[in-house]
């Protein structure tokens, strides 16, 4: 999803090969992308998350996922043996551009693709990659992330979920919170404590287990938006096989940090997915006078937000181009997360201002079941989840500005 929104410049690549590839992609998409999958996304229901219990919205959604997965194009840059197509960055850009050209929807969105995948590719064993990546690529297994705990939010490394070594297996006991879609996920990648004798960053391990394992319970949390995208997740004597430990035992924090930079880039980039420009929404709601939005104060604020949004999008592209293909952005991902989420909150406040009474409707068909208001409320979590804005500013202070005591 989000990766497709950035326009990369194609450099260094063999242009004639790329042109041939582009023609091939175009022809294939033309023949294989169902018409229905070329329509703008109208709501959450149009996003395909996959998984064992996934109910496809339509045949077109199912066919589109199957065809793209068969090409390896749900995860185009992953190696072929893991369900990808082994595309270069330049080829991936071509694919993204061609998809964008016909307005093709993303065939599959998943935490498996955005977060677990990069972590396994970097830290996983060959057997782990072969076991877990292809089902992610095909949309057969839906993953959730077990990170935060009731007492470990911004201070994630103080997590306490206990993982005991029982010889041939582990036993996990504890509680996670803010587990996105845990009630709908098939497997979880989870941070647990295997040792509590040293410093808090030490003794954390990264484990994988099936959500159907006895002792796992996910309870949805109702949010201010009235929706429940997150759960509280409880583990009581949950058995985890030893081969499902990723990376080095006690050093799960390295995996966690690597994965967090991917999460931050994702959240920071989310504001780019709002399709209709703010000023159009405002013009439709308030009207124009002499070609100008009829509320001059709001007009100024909208202009400022749109300028920031444009410049932020350029910064996303620049930072991703600067970090070489596949490389992590390091602490700059915190800068992007901070700026992108604060901007998104600002935009949604302005959207509420622009739509006035209409935007306040909560349950009507006219308001698409309160979409405007619910989205506005949902954005308030953007600057909390994945590290609060304050934590992001701390990270910039410490790692970029190198301020003392940060």
């Amino acid at each position, binding site marked *: 999803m989000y990766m497709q929104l950035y326009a990369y410049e194609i450099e260094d690549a063999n242009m004639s090969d790329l042109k041939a590839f582009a023609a091939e992609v175009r022809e294939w998409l033309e023949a294989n992308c169902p018409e229905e999958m070329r329509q703008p996304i109208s709501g959450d229901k149009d996003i395909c998350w996959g998984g064992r219990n996934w109910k496809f919205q339509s045949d077109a959604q199912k066919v589109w996922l199957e065809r793209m997965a068969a090409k390896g194009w749900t995860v185009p840059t992953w190696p072929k043996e893991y369900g990808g197509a082994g595309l270069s960055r330049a080829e991936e850009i071509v694919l993204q551009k061609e998809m964008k050209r016909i307005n093709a929807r993303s065939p599959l969105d998943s935490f498996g693709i955005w977060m677990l995948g990069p972590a396994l590719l970097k830290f996983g064993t060959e057997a782990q990659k072969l076991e877990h990546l292809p089902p992610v690529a095909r949309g057969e297994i839906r993953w959730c992330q077990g990170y935060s705990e009731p007492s470990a939010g911004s201070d994630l490394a103080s997590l306490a979920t206990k993982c005991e070594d029982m010889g041939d297996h582990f036993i996990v006991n504890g509680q996670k919170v803010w587990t996105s879609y845990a009630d709908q996920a098939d497997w979880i990648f989870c941070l647990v404590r295997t040792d509590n004798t040293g410093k808090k960053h030490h003794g954390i391990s990264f484990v994988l287990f099936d959500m159907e394992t006895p002792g796992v319970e996910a309870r949805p949390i109702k949010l201010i938006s009235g929706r429940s995208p997150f759960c509280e997740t409880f583990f009581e004597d949950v058995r985890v096989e030893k081969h499902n430990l990723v990376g080095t035992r006690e050093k799960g924090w390295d995996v966690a940090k690597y994965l967090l930079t991917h999460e931050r880039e994702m959240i920071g980039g989310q504001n780019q997915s709002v399709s209709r420009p703010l000023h159009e929404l405002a013009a439709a709601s308030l009207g124009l006078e002499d070609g100008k939005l009829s509320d001059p104060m709001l007009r100024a604020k909208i202009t400022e937000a749109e*300028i920031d949004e444009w410049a932020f999008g350029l*910064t996303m592209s*620049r930072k991703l181009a600067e970090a070489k293909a596949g490389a992590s952005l390091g602490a700059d991902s915190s*800068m992007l997360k*901070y700026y992108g989420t604060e901007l998104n909150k600002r935009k949604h406040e302005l959207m509420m201002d622009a739509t006035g009474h209409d935007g306040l409707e909560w349950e009507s068909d006219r308001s698409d079941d309160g979409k405007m208001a619910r989205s506005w409320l949902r954005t308030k979590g953007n600057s909390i989840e994945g590290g609060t804005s304050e934590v992001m*500013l701390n990270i910039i202070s410490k790692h*970029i500005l190198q301020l003392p005591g940060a």
Partner: protein
Amino acid sequence: MGLLLTEDEVMLRDTAEGFFADKAPVTSLRKLRDERDETGFDRSLWAEMAEMGFTGVVIDEDHGGVDMGFLAAGLIAEQMGRNLSASPFLSTAILAATAIREGGSSEQKSEWLPKIAGGEAIIALALDEGPKHNPSGTSATAEKSGNGFKLNGSKAMVVDGHIADALIVAARTNGEDGDSEGISLFIVNPKTQGVSTERTIMVDSRNAARIELDNVEVSGDALLGTVDDGMAVLGKVLNVGRAAVAAELLGAGSQAFESTVAYIKERKQFGSIIGEFQALQHRASHLYAELEIARSAVLAALTALDNDDPKAELYCAMAKAKLGSVAKLASQEGVQMHGGVGMTDEYDIGLFMKRIRVLQELFGDAHYHMNQFALANKF
């Protein structure tokens, strides 16, 4: 746009960085100010800038330039911003060179471009008249007079107008105040009878001029571009000028920011280094983010100009609007975080605040460009 610099551009930036830090640091500006230098700039520096090729950065090779383009010009301007280097680079090497290259006859190009590239002529743009930037509000007039024109009116904020060997004057040959059509450009010798120039030393210790035009007779050859359609040339000149000023703002804002961060790592109060206080850390980190966003805006605007992007004007408005507010924030936070010494003349941070105040006003402040951005997007 990836907005990555090429090897050549990195080399140019590094060269400019060393050059201005060495030849025209902030102490040079202080010296010009304190000695009340009559020109307000250093001619030997200008000659060295010509030797480096900086003065000919947007001039084609046939006319003695190095033709490296607008991104290159912006990289030079950014380094000048970092050092508050005083020179007629903006007025002459950017604005006048672009105006003549875009609108000049072959005679005008041959006469002026090699002189600009060689550092032998200083040319100032006499456009604005009132307290705020308003090109279509031009009310100075140029009436037909024999084979030539007769110019009347007054101009303000003519950057480097006090030392110019030639002025590019915008005057109305048709239409009324507020029309963007009907404006024409003229190359005028400031020694012509009827031209009077008052040097105006500005808050940043740099110089501009107020210029009165009282029945100034110029020949038909003085016309730059087409009668009534000066905006065709001026539009491009202003886009380039705005992007270059945004680049200078980026340099000045970044330097103000970096010196502030360095200061709060040293200053102690309450037994602590003040940079340990989260109240300052978060504001500094926010500024870091804003400056990164601002840098992308500048690079994108300069790149759009080099690519003749149809949206170049919008990019330049975006960049000038963004830099106007971000650089201002950087200087304001800089003075505040310096505390008492931030108010003293001895520390440089105040000089950055003053220069940024002037630059954000030049060719339209953030409000002006926000309005332009909104109008271009039809709201």
